[in-house]
């Protein structure tokens, strides 16, 4: 299988359609910088994988390589596609076309089926392009500059999938499964031990309960006496007993309160009914009566004084009227010996005597008011003390009445308390009797509680036998689980041993394979001769889990650090070519090199050309892009062209319209044979 042709349009720097028909033997592509030589390698890679791997930076300024896959220059391409065509040794073609619009016309599986065979590595198509296309950018990066683990992985991938390559993953799965089973066994074992610990604690508690056991029948009698209608079933009877006990305790508390209340009432009654208290109450009643009488007498005196004052004040009003009349009469005087007031015939004397008599009468009438007022005030003064006395006596009598009412109310509340809590009314007035009753009831509750404890203990007996059988079963289970843990631990150990052995055997297989390709690396290194003194290069593999592949020259020196850039590239080429040649999983015999001679001097470039010529001799198709026309000439001369595997040379450039195109295409014919044998061409020369 080799490349037949590549056709691109609107791809990268190719605006117009360009087709390159590769020579079956070799193809040399030449052109100045930037005309698109590398794009032809890109196109092959893109056709196979759908991407281009050469850029280490995937994104820049929010743009990725994908934004630059297709033509972005002046003008509009007629189409956007890449077609790569391969042809096998029987002449059967296999073509892949990827368009911008529709993607690939081949699935990755189809492409892999055509281009890979046998036990392929992971990500086979990527590995195929990585090991088939040797780019300037990657010569050092993919060889000397790789970390040792990456280098190991690259070589291992190039070797393809090895026998038993999936065994490592499966062994890991077996370890995980065995560990999971072991974890489950351990968890079950721990859970059983935890249950056993619980049961052992219960056993101890039950044992303690058993130590309190007594006469069960006596206890039952006690409970029956305390709760005549208790259920027969033991647990229910125990529950009823505990309820009854709680009720008795509550009742005892109420009875205690009732005793307290009864004693308070009795004390108050005793105080209230004492002879001194009764005498005091009678004295208070008598004092009230006396005070009431004294008050009434004083009130009568006041009434009388008020009546007298009224009368005096009435007489005083008459005297005032008379005074006005007398004064009027005096002013008028006798008129014709007649009284001006009553027209009676009067003499002056009589008139004067009448006036005098009147004035006396006025004086007598008015003089009684002052006395009456004084008498009333005195009476009122006299009545004040009896009023105070009465008030005091009434307060005292009221206080006695209040005390009695309070006592009666307390007595009623006491009765209500008895009623409310269903206490025996016989003890309402008998706190001592009630206290005696409390003592009796407490005795009964203690007996009930003891009986309940005894019954509890009797239950513990049956519980104990259940716990003991459970403990025995648990011990058996723990024994079984311990064996399972031990077995699963053994399984984990065995699984890890399998995993270790798989790793070791795989590592040995890889090491052997690497050892097998080591001479190839050395031969290529010797052919390329990067260094005049260090003529050999060695693989060195280290590590068990992580594998390292280091390259050493001379006396264990790392070429990465002792070689010049040109020497590093030459050594890198040797490495990449050995990886390319070691692939056994692809029928593709095409090697593409994109400008492999940068930084390499003419002498080493010549060595590279000789190496490529040697690869050609092995029937490989060499496709090489170079900038230098002289180097292209050398390649065209040195890479063997035969009638069946001819060579081609393409010169590409940018045409006047700004599009890249093939400006020269040339078949490289086979060279003449038998040149030196041609006797006619021999000259006689002297040996001097």
């Amino acid at each position, binding site marked *: 299988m080799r490349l037949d042709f590549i056709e691109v349009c609107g791809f990268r720097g190719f605006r117009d359609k360009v087709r390159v028909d590769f020579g079956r033997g070799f193809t040399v592509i030449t052109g100045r910088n930037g005309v698109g030589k590398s794009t032809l390698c890109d196109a092959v890679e893109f056709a196979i994988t759908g991407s281009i791997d050469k850029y280490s930076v995937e994104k820049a300024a929010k743009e990725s390589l994908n934004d630059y896959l297709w033509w972005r220059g002046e003008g509009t391409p007629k189409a956007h596609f890449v077609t790569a065509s391969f042809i096998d040794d029987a002449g059967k073609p296999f073509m892949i076309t990827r368009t911008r619009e529709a993607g690939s016309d081949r699935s990755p599986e189809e492409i892999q089926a055509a281009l890979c065979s046998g036990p392929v590595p992971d990500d086979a198509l990527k590995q195929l392009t990585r090991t088939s296309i040797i780019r300037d950018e990657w010569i050092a990066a993919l060889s000397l500059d790789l970390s040792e683990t990456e280098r190991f992985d690259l070589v291992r991938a190039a070797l393809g999938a090895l026998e*038993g390559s999936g065994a490592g993953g499966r062994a890991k799965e077996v370890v995980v499964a065995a560990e999971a089973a072991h974890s489950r066994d351990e968890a079950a074992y721990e859970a059983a031990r935890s249950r056993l610990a619980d049961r052992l604690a219960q056993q101890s508690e039950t044992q303690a309960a058993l130590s309190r056991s007594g006469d069960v029948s006596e206890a039952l009698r006690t409970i029956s006496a305390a709760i005549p209608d208790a259920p027969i079933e033991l647990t229910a009877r125990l529950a009823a007993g505990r309820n009854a006990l709680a009720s008795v305790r509550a009742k005892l508390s109420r009875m205690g309160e009732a005793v307290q209340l009864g004693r308070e009432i009795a004390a108050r009654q005793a105080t209230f009914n004492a002879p001194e208290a009764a005498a005091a109450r009678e004295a208070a009643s008598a004092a009230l009566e006396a005070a009431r009488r004294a008050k009434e007498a004083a009130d009568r005196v006041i009434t009388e004084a008020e009546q007298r004052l009224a009368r005096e004040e009435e007489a005083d009003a008459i005297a005032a009227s008379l005074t006005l009349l007398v004064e009027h009469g005096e002013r008028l005087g006798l008129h014709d010996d007649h009284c001006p007031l009553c027209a009676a015939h009067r003499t002056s004397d009589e008139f004067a005597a009448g006036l005098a008599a009147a004035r006396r009468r006025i004086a007598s009438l008015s003089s009684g008011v002052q006395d009456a007022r004084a008498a009333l005030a005195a009476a009122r003064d006299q009545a004040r003390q009896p009023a105070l006395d009465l008030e005091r006596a009434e307060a005292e009598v009221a206080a006695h009445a209040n005390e009695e009412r309070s006592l009666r109310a307390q007595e009623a509340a006491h009765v209500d308390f008895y009623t409310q809590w269903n206490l025996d009314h016989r003890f309402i007035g008998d706190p001592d009797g009630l206290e005696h009753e409390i003592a009796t009831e407490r005795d009964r509750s203690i007996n009930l509680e003891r009986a309940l404890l005894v019954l509890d203990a009797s239950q513990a007996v049956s519980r104990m036998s259940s716990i003991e059988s459970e403990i025995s079963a648990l011990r058996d289970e723990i024994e079984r689980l311990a064996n399972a843990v031990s077995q*699963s631990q053994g399984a984990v150990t065995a699984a890890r041993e399998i995993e270790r052995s798989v790793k070791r055997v795989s590592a040995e*297989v890889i090491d052997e394979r690497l050892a097998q390709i080591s*001479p190839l690396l050395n031969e290529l290194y*010797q052919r390329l001769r990067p260094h005049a003194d260090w003529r050999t290069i060695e693989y060195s593999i280290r590590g068990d889990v992580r594998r390292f592949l280091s390259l050493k020259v001379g006396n264990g020196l790392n070429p990465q650090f002792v070689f010049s850039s040109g020497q590093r590239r030459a050594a890198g080429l040797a490495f990449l070519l050995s990886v390319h040649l070691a692939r056994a999983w692809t029928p593709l015999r095409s090697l593409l090199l994109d400008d492999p001679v940068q930084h390499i001097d003419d002498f080493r470039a010549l060595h590279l050309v000789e190496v490529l010529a040697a690869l050609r001799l092995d029937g490989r198709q060499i496709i090489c892009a170079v900038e230098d026309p002289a180097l292209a000439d050398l390649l065209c001369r040195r890479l*063997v062209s035969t009638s069946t595997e001819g060579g081609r040379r393409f010169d590409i450039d940018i045409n006047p319209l700004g599009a890249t195109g093939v400006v020269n295409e040339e078949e490289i014919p086979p060279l003449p044979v038998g040149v030196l044998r041609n006797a006619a061409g021999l000259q006689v020369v002297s040996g001097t």
Partner: protein
Amino acid sequence: MDILTQAEILLRDAQYETWTWTASTGPVTCFESAALMGFVHVFDSAEALIDGWKASQQLALARHSASLRGAGTKAWNVYSVFLTGGRAPSRSREIERIEEDFSLTRKIARASISIQDDVEKALLPLLSIRSKPLLGASNFESRLRSRLKDIPSDAVTAFLNDTPAAEVARILGATS
């Protein structure tokens, strides 16, 4: 070791046509393939090589000058191989510098040629890739079985037969 004979054997193995003619300086082996042609000159010592390679080259080219003139571009693919069994460590670099002279022919110059491998290394630029890694079957299964003698064989068989991991673990003794 006859260096010339060994060189001829190697070149013939590599599909070259070879023949020898004797020049005044000694025998010269000619070789030619579809792409290359050239001459192998053997010297008695490193000094003789250093002193005589130019004359030997000139002699061979002169003898074939007419043929080479008619060979077209193939005339650019002429190799002059200068070999000697003589040892001259102090002059080996000087000898190899001859190869960097690009005038007239591509040159291969080596001293201390004592075994066939030395001849082969010297002629490598003319030969196809010699190392062909034989990546055969690795007998992974039998090697793994041999390593796992202490593991029950039914478990190893189950493992190698892609039996589910949990089942392999069960066979190994994990019971839960």
